[in-house]
């Protein structure tokens, strides 16, 4: 597979995880592309304006990339924390509308700031990796780390509180969960992840402009989660990987590809209302593998017995 496409798919998976975090506690936030844009803008500005970040050799230094990712995530997280307390008072579709507005506000600001390059954006962002495979390898490590953290989160107090709020917010409050604080935590974590991903994506894309954080992106990233399922960390990852790859893989079909892509997005939720990956499906898969393992072991025992010959008293 083309490493460039793989890199895009991995970024899709990271964004899917970002959208899924607020959804884990029942909050339909579409703000991920806005925070993604902030992270990218931070990285683009730092690495094109400050020589220390750009480096001197053929590739920009890796520590600079890590620092940009940290700063991009931090700025996105801080903004989420500052506005989250107010925005998260809204519920359901109203929260979705408010977060769409946030993405639009950020887009228009980026478009009009004197130092973000207007509609053309920022060009010639230095490359920390010489090849697309280098990017893909680095992003794969990042995705694995984030997946591990998300899997851990499911076992933790915060993760359980998030699931409880999604099921029944009022009952969750009555067993002592500060629901506003938990929702804010999920929102900030989501923004942080989107910001970090944005910083990485800006380098990979080489240029960065306001169009990155658009309403379209809000819907696309939401589709990752709806398609993959929001109940486990694996769902958004699969959704992000598959739905990013699909338009490219469908190129041989020609003009039909957009129709096929649309059909997949349409049929996904119809056939799998909870998304492709559900806890039940994972559970079933786990049992299947266990059964297969036991079968293998039984077969092994049989072989051993046959080899040692029939036992005699």
């Amino acid at each position, binding site marked *: 597979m083309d490493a460039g496409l793989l890199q895009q798919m991995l970024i899709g998976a990271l964004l899917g995880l970002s959208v899924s975090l607020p959804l884990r506690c029942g909050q339909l936030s579409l703000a991920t592309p806005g925070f993604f844009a902030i992270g990218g803008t931070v990285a683009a500005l730092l690495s094109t304006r400050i020589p220390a970040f750009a480096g001197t050799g053929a590739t920009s230094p890796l520590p600079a990339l890590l620092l940009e990712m940290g700063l991009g995530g931090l700025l996105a997280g801080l903004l989420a924390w500052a506005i989250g307390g107010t925005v998260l008072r809204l519920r359901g579709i109203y929260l979705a509308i408010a977060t769409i507005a946030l993405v639009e506000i950020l887009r228009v600001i980026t478009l009009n700031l004197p130092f973000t390059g207007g509609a053309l954006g920022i060009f010639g962002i230095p490359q920390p990796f010489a090849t697309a495979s280098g990017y893909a390898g680095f992003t794969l490590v990042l995705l694995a780390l984030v997946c591990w*953290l998300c899997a*851990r*989160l499911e*076992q*933790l*107090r*915060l993760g*359980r*509180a998030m*699931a*409880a709020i*999604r*099921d*029944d917010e*009022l*009952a*969750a*409050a*009555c*067993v*002592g*969960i*500060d*629901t506003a604080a938990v929702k804010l*935590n999920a929102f900030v974590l989501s923004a942080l992840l989107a910001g970090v991903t944005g910083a990485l994506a800006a380098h990979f894309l080489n240029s960065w402009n306001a169009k990155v954080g658009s309403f379209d992106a809000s819907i696309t990233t939401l589709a990752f989660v709806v398609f993959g399922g929001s*109940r486990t960390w694996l769902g958004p990852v699969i959704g992000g990987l598959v739905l990013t790859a699909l338009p490219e893989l469908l190129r041989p079909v020609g003009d039909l590809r957009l129709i096929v892509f649309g059909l997949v997005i349409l049929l996904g939720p119809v056939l799998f209302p909870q998304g492709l990956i559900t*806890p039940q499906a994972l559970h079933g898969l786990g049992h299947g593998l266990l059964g297969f393992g036991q079968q293998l072991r039984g077969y092994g025992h049989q072989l051993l017995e046959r080899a040692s010959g029939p036992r005699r008293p």
Partner: protein
Amino acid sequence: MSTAPLLEVAGLSCRFGGLVALHEVSLTVREGEIFGLIGPNGAGKTTLFNVISALTPPSSGRVLWRGQAIPHSRPDQLSRLGLARTFQNLRLFDSLSVRDNVLVGLHRFAASPLAAGLLGSATVRRRQRQLEQRALELLALVGLAEEAQLPAASLPYGERRRLEIARALATEPRLLLLDEPAAGMNPAEKNDLCGLIRTIRDHFDLTVMIIEHHVPLMMRLCDRLAVLNFGERIALGSPAAVRHDPRVIEAYLGSAR
């Protein structure tokens, strides 16, 4: 040692538009008693529970906790003070397992720094095992130990009621509000539930406030009873006194004339 009652409801009124759900209701609940709340449908029993647990703001009047007013309280703050409740129409976390429902109830005792939790430090893991152990103990107490790993949504009705009680107990309450815990149970199950409520009161040194329609059960179970009718408290006292109160008989059976 303060002599203030655990819970005092003073001149509490609650109006929804033109509907008066509660009118000047006053009562006190003493530490350690099982306090029953009975009355015909629509008498305002659940509304009183909702006001006490800060889900519904009162129109006037006060709720005092150990003699102290609790202004601007949220349900989660009251939970930390020691108030827990169950719901008339069951509010379990259906996508979680039976055990995890109780673990959510242990939320307050699971605090750890997020970073330490994510990395799974030894202390965090030990604490987690303790909490899981505690959850299983609570499930054993209500007779659901075998079902710990099942999804909460898969439990039959009576067991869902008991799971909700276990979840409420996990928050280590001082006062437990039970809203029709025996609804939909058969007589044998109701009897078992009666025993369970007494057991948990003695075991946890709890105060229990209970709404239930089954009057004979309430007469046996409760130390004191309050009777509501059309939002007003029409009687308060021992089961024997309440049983012979003419206003109570009138509310339940209609007047003789």
